[in-house]
């Protein structure tokens, strides 16, 4: 009896929770946050941050999900810092279109 009521209760509560479930993400973020975090903890990890940005950009060509706003520009900015102006402009333009 008690077991059964717990089951009923669980079912109801599951329905209740479903009603306020998180929406699925709009964007693909990959490891954008974690690699940025690692870079902020230790500046020598900038390479991994840059590699992840590029990986996300490459995925965006084949995935239906857009990549998060700002990611093209973040990558473009890292290129600009390295002095690769021509390539960086390309990614800033892509950011505009995203």
């Amino acid at each position, binding site marked *: *009896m008690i077991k059964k009521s717990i089951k009923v209760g669980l079912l109801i509560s599951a*329905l209740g929770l479903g009603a306020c479930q998180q929406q699925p993400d*709009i964007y693909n973020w990959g490891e954008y946050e974690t690699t*940025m975090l690692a870079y902020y903890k230790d500046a020598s990890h900038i390479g991994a941050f840059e590699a992840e940005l590029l990986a996300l950009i490459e995925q965006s060509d084949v995935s239906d999900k857009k990549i998060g706003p700002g990611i093209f*520009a*973040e990558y473009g*900015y890292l290129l600009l810092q390295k002095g690769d102006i021509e390539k960086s402009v390309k990614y800033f333009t892509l950011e505009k279109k995203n």
Partner: protein
Amino acid sequence: MFHKKILSKLAIFSLILISLSACQTTNIKKDYSSFREADPRSILIVPVVNNSVEVDAPDLFLSTLSRYLAERGYYVFPVNLVKNVMEEDGMGDANLAHEVDPTRLGEIFGSDMALYVKINTWTAEWAVIAASVTVEMEYVLKDTRTGQTLWTDSQTRQWAPKTHNAGHPLLTLIVAAIQAAAVKAAPNYIPLAQQANYNAFNQIKTGLPAGPYNPKYQNDMEDF
């Protein structure tokens, strides 16, 4: 038998109560009239002011903000780029950046809004067998076209490891001490910061109305 019936009813009732409390808020709806009127589309995240003793808290926290704001439907300016540009422009000091006229930031970046965050607490407390991690922040969104404040919120999150009963008093104590030591060695603030952000921006009646890139844009008038 009678006793069992009551117990089972109680079981159902308490589970329903749990499910309701997980979602419902007793919050009073904030005044969104100026937010709705401004109808902002983009957010610039200004360097985070740190009132805690942890020096790297602002940078670490900065990396947790974009996702939550973007998923609410706003264009979020690339945080690492903005951080560097502001540093080059002499606004790298967060306290100074918070003093700058918001409309000036709007002119530089072309944003609709700026988010100002202050970290008030970012601490891990440790006392041999007990530990806790606490984060506390204040969020303010200002219109960078008019300078008007559109939205404010504050969040506190605390975490403490659960004490496990290891069956033997001494063992239980040792387990607790190990847990506390682990917190001391590497307190993990990030999940708490993420929870704080999620709550601040998503909570019905107090969060941010869906922005133009969210399917609920302008369809959430009752909630916000």
